[in-house]
């Protein structure tokens, strides 16, 4: 019987440690990159979702309202909240004269929401929609000091995540005209 020599054992252990460290480091870096990119996608997706939803509501809106009550809570239009009045639509997508739906966009802490209150004849569905949980800033500005006279709403959204000390942000800005003003 001839065993391993000390040199052989040390070399094997050394090589094993080296490989473990190399692969471990590779895995950790890979995981960091994966997490970072996942975060980038998440903040971009959150900002895009807010802009898309804002487009979907502001474009067909007829007026910005100074305030409106949604389920007992009154929301007021200001720099961080916008309340909209939209002509209701039927199942075929045609507007219903004299009937209106109401929408509000606002942010609570880091979560952006869109509330929708619809007319009974409207095909839109009432409810609360959570748009993003990574909101750093959400602002609305108007082309008229009297918001009820506004024809254009500028939406600026910034989403942010901190992953392992790295700050990841995304910012989108869009000016949207009220087509039904």
């Amino acid at each position: 019987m001839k065993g391993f020599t000390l040199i052989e054992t040390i070399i094997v252990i050394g090589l094993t440690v080296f490989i473990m460290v190399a692969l471990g480091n590779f895995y950790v870096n890979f995981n960091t990159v994966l997490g970072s990119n996942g975060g980038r996608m998440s903040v971009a997706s959150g900002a895009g979702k807010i802009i898309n939803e804002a487009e979907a509501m502001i474009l067909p809106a007829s007026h910005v309202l100074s305030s409106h009550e949604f389920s007992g809570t009154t929301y007021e239009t200001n720099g961080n909240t916008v309340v909209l009045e939209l002509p209701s639509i039927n199942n075929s997508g045609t507007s219903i004269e004299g009937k209106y739906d109401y929408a509000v966009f606002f942010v609570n802490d880091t979560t952006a929401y869109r509330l929708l209150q619809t007319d009974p004849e409207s095909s839109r569905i009432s409810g609360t929609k959570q748009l993003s949980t990574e909101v750093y800033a959400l602002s609305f500005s108007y082309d008229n000091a009297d918001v009820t006279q506004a024809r254009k709403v500028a939406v600026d959204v910034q989403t942010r995540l901190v992953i392992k000390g790295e700050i990841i942000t995304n910012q989108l800005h869009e000016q949207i005209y009220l087509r039904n003003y």
Partner: protein
Amino acid sequence: MNQHRHRSRAQGQILLLSLVFLGIFLAVSTAFLGLIVTYTKSERHIVASAQARALAEAGIDEAAYQLNHDASYTGEANTELALGAFTVIVTTLNASTKQVTVTGFVPNSVHPIASKTIRVNVSIDASTISFRYGVQAGAGGFVLSGGSRINGNVYANGNIQATTGVRITGSATAANPPALVADQVNETPSAIPSCTGSTCITFANSTATQDISQSFKITTATGLNNIQFYIKKVGTPSDVIVRIVNDTAGNPGTDVLMTGNLLASSITTNFGWVTVTLPSTPVLDPAQTYWVVLDADSNSTKYYVLGANENGYANGTAKIGRYGGSWSATTPSGLDSYFRVYLGGGTSLIGGNTYTTGVYVGTEPTDDAWAHTIKGATVTGTLYCQSSSYTNKACNTSRADPTPQPMPLSDGNIEEWKNDALTGGTITGNYHSGWAGATLGPKKIVGNLLVDGGGTLTVTGTLWITGTVTVTGGGKIKLAASYGANDGALIADGPVIVNGGANFSGSGTDGSYPFLITTSACPAESGCNGADAVSLSGGVGTVAIIAQNGNVHIGGGSALKAVTAKQITMDGGAELFYDDGLISTNFSSGPGGSWTFVPGTYTIAQ
């Protein structure tokens, strides 16, 4: 042997370890790639959706453009534009409203990454021109004789002189004519080529400048007859409520003496004098100051601009603010708006003969005669008057004298038609359409237009003739089929002569009529040599004649759809038929004639 066996068992450990790490590596890589692919797809879809929406909105613009060139446009399929394509479907909802559905596809409709469908209604401007009366005369009133007959209601801002067995089958109303000269006026300089701070007052564009008011004083205690403003509009604002109110400490008060309307359809995007519809004619006190308040809605893109000057009117001033709220001085202060106030110039008359058979009014119990004085008349309904003689009934004095009604077209309306005609170019020299006929329009003709020889002139757009228009010798003028249910306009600056079996017709679709309009003031202006602004004899078909500055003479059994003129003269057995379809009429071009998006109908269908 055992040593070799141990060695071979130990071999492969590194391979195993490598496989484990390789597995981990592949799993993480797969997840990473999956995330990237999902993100990329999501981003591509978001961008493509935005592009598809932009394409659909481009399709809406395309539909409006096409409709304004051809009202029979029904849509188009797979029109390529930029990075995608769009499909337009136009559905007719009624004569003046169409629904446009446009779907935008990116990159194409066969394999779209994204598609968006937008639906809107487009309509001929809702502020269509109203012809409330089939036969309406201005201050010159009617001069009817020779057994002439009008089938329908008539309205005059002056006398209806009818003395020799004339028949009016509907109601007849004669409002007191205005004085020939305005009692109060501010109109210097007479034209405003472009606005400056001291030549224009903008109102109805914000809550602080929503309404405008102008103070004035009259010279005699005579009833108001007519108020005019020099005004233009921006966008498509709604009608303006006009109030005459008292003065309270230098501002408009709350005692309303009269409320009337300034119709948005009479106001164009160019300055012009527009008459206020007065429902009553209050008698004002010459010793008092009054305010005329223009009360409008507030909208930053749909508002009005009044012509103005600095301290041009000695008996008052303009103020800006809000009716029922506060008023401020204009900026700069001391501006006066352009306006004219006419007082009643006399009392109106229906009839004029000393026999009850001078004029027959009405065929139903609801067909009334209404004027200050009625003389020599047989009326089926009620005689609303203050004095009567040689009538079959006594006066019913329960109604005050009727108020003058504004003419349906403003100078601005006619100017818009002229501009529309200019888009098709200019023909210099006289234009003759003979036996072979012709197709023409839109076009300005610097010269005269003659249609004769039994040929047909097919009108494909607005015509503006700077000289005379003569349709004779069996000549025909008809609107092209592309007009659909809309009306078309021929504008002449000179006199119009229609005789010899001339005939007019619409597009063939019910409700479509040609409007023959002249701005001529004949026979009153120089150079007329006794000619009328419009002279008709013989059947002329389905045409509406407008001569708001001059006299229309109808003779020889003419049959028309409607006529509006400063004065209307009928004799020789002329007959006129009223058409209810003209009460509110749509033109395919010119004022109120463009297809535009109807706010409130924009929806994103998917």
